[in-house]
């Protein structure tokens, strides 16, 4: 066991897979010599060398095009898009090329690649370096979407993503890079498409993703003191989506609250509430409530950003109000 930060877990997960499989290569801006702008890839260049860990120019289309071309010809590339906002300059490669090509070619091609990216707000970086893009990725057929909420899951889900034969968008919540936890030694391998129940309660089910998970857990502790006992589910993987676990946990309490950092429209919680409405409607005892960032670009000022992103306080207030209505 060792105390590991979320950012150290990134490097450990990648290193674990690079050691076991020569076909795993890694490219991105500042990922090698600099160890990543978030220091998430420190030590990889030193251990695996410049042939497998490659710094690139600031050319997001080239980075992802290269990852795609390499993956269709036998490699398992990991590509970094430094900030998830930058997906906007290479979204064509992701959406039109990587996501569609297996289907269009009637299964002739396979794209075992991982695109890692720093996602979400909380660091006061302003609207072009803070947004959450999980909803962009989730709506594209052909992309798997993974958003871990802690260091242990980072390692296990990174390993599962690298070993997966489909393209995986692996979103790393920037606000969590410094978070720490005890992580066992040895190989860690998790599974995509598996939500985790982190806390069991009888009154309401709170479903959260990424950086919203620790906030949901803190909110659940406060709510318990006020007599509202919450189940907390960490979605972890938007595609594939573990609807079985979520439907089971919602049916058990009769209430669903989603905690989403993405802006309001078309967030993952909207899809989830549609699924629950269609398939567990008669188990519901009250409305489904989505707690999200408002439908605005994220502001830079700490006071404003804190108002925008769902806080522990907002979760507590919203859940309490709805449960007592």
């Amino acid at each position, binding site marked *: 066991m060792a105390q590991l930060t979320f950012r150290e877990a990134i490097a450990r997960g990648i290193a674990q897979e690079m050691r076991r499989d020569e076909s795993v290569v890694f490219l991105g801006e500042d990922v090698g010599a600099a160890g990543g702008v978030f220091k998430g890839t420190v030590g990889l260049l030193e251990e695996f060398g410049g042939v497998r860990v490659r710094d690139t120019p600031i050319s997001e*289309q080239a980075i992802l095009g*290269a990852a795609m071309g390499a*993956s*269709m*010809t036998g490699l398992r590339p990991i590509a970094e898009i430094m900030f998830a906002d930058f997906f906007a300059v290479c979204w064509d490669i992701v959406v039109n*090329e990587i996501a569609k090509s297996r289907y269009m070619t*009637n299964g002739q*091609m396979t794209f075992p690649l991982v695109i890692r990216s720093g996602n979400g707000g909380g660091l006061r970086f302003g609207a072009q370096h803070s947004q959450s893009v999980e909803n962009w990725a989730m709506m594209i057929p052909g992309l798997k979407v993974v958003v871990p909420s802690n260091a242990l899951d980072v390692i296990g889900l990174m390993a599962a993503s690298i070993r*997966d034969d489909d393209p995986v968008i692996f979103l790393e919540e920037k606000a969590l890079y410094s978070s720490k936890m005890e992580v066992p030694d040895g190989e860690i391998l998790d599974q995509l498409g598996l939500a985790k129940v982190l806390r069991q309660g009888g009154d309401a089910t709170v479903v959260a993703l990424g950086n919203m998970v620790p906030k949901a857990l803190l909110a659940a502790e406060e709510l318990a003191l006020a007599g509202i006992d919450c189940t907390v589910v960490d979605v972890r993987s938007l595609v*594939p989506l573990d609807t079985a676990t979520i439907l089971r946990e919602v049916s058990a309490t009769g209430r669903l609250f989603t905690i989403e950092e993405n802006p309001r429209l078309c967030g993952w919680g909207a899809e989830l509430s549609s699924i629950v409405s269609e398939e567990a409607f008669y188990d519901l005892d009250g409305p489904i409530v989505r707690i999200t960032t408002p439908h605005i670009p994220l502001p830079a000022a700490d006071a404003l950003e804190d108002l925008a992103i769902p806080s522990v306080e907002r979760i507590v207030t919203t859940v309490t109000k709805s449960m007592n209505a």
Partner: protein
Amino acid sequence: MTTTKTAPPAMDLEAKLDLYRCQVELRQFEERAYDLFLENYVKGTSHLGIGQEAIAAGFAAAMKPTDWTFATYRGHNHTLARGVPMTPVLAELMGRTNGLMAGKGGSMHLTSVEHGVMGSYAIIGAHLPIACGAAWSAQYRGTDQVAVCFFGDGSVNIGAFHEALNFAAIWKLPVVFVCENNLWMEYTRTSEVTAVENPAADRAAAYGLESIIVDGNDVDAVFEVAATAIARARAGEGPSMIEAKTYRHGGHSRADPGKYRPDEEVAEWKAKDPIPRYHARLLDLGVAEEVLVKIVTEVAAAVDVATDEAKAGAIPGEDLLMKDVWADGGSSWRN
């Protein structure tokens, strides 16, 4: 910068006849595809390569079977030139299960991994970085494979083109970029919207590459530059950029009669049609007219057979609809 100056292998007459046959096949295939549009067998859109056959034929002849082709939505020529049979290509255009991708890709996305045709891409410029990735993979795995990436003159002003060239140059990738400059970027004359005279070749220097321009309607000339550039890539000497001057006889796509082009220009380029030119050259080399006529007749018969076989293909159904989004063969996104 070093350049390989070794002379490309001299072609024997047999190989030249193969080049002739290949061009004739591409031409007749496209003409049939056009007719099948008019008969409503081919739906949607299609971008014919009539007039540009010499480039596809010349490059394919210079490639090893293990090399990779990356093509655009005007990709019928390049797919067939790599040895993909006509029937599955025609059936793909017609949306049948015996199509190259069982009807799921269509005219603009012809792919045959088995033949090294690693996709036809319909977003301008997108496949240049992808070809770099394949080349990187060959370099990393130590194979001697080369990626050959074809694109039109319309691709040279999009960002991906420039990102890919820089990337290929700095990593010294075994990739050959081939601009088929047919002078028209869809409905607009390329020179009117491009800052340099030779849209691809004039940009090569900016990435440390040699500027190579070739008569794209002369299959022998194309073969020569192709063989040199591919050998250079294979030897680890890095990427090349070749601009092949050519002309499409028809419009941009099915919907376009190409009326914006001056008649004299079209006439001038039709006079430079690569197939009659090569026909004349082969006669000069002593090939009997009847040998060439026989090739044309044989190809015509093969196109007829392919047409019948394609038309006989089944219409795809729901089983194909939900197949192969994922590597497990399915399309499920939830449990």
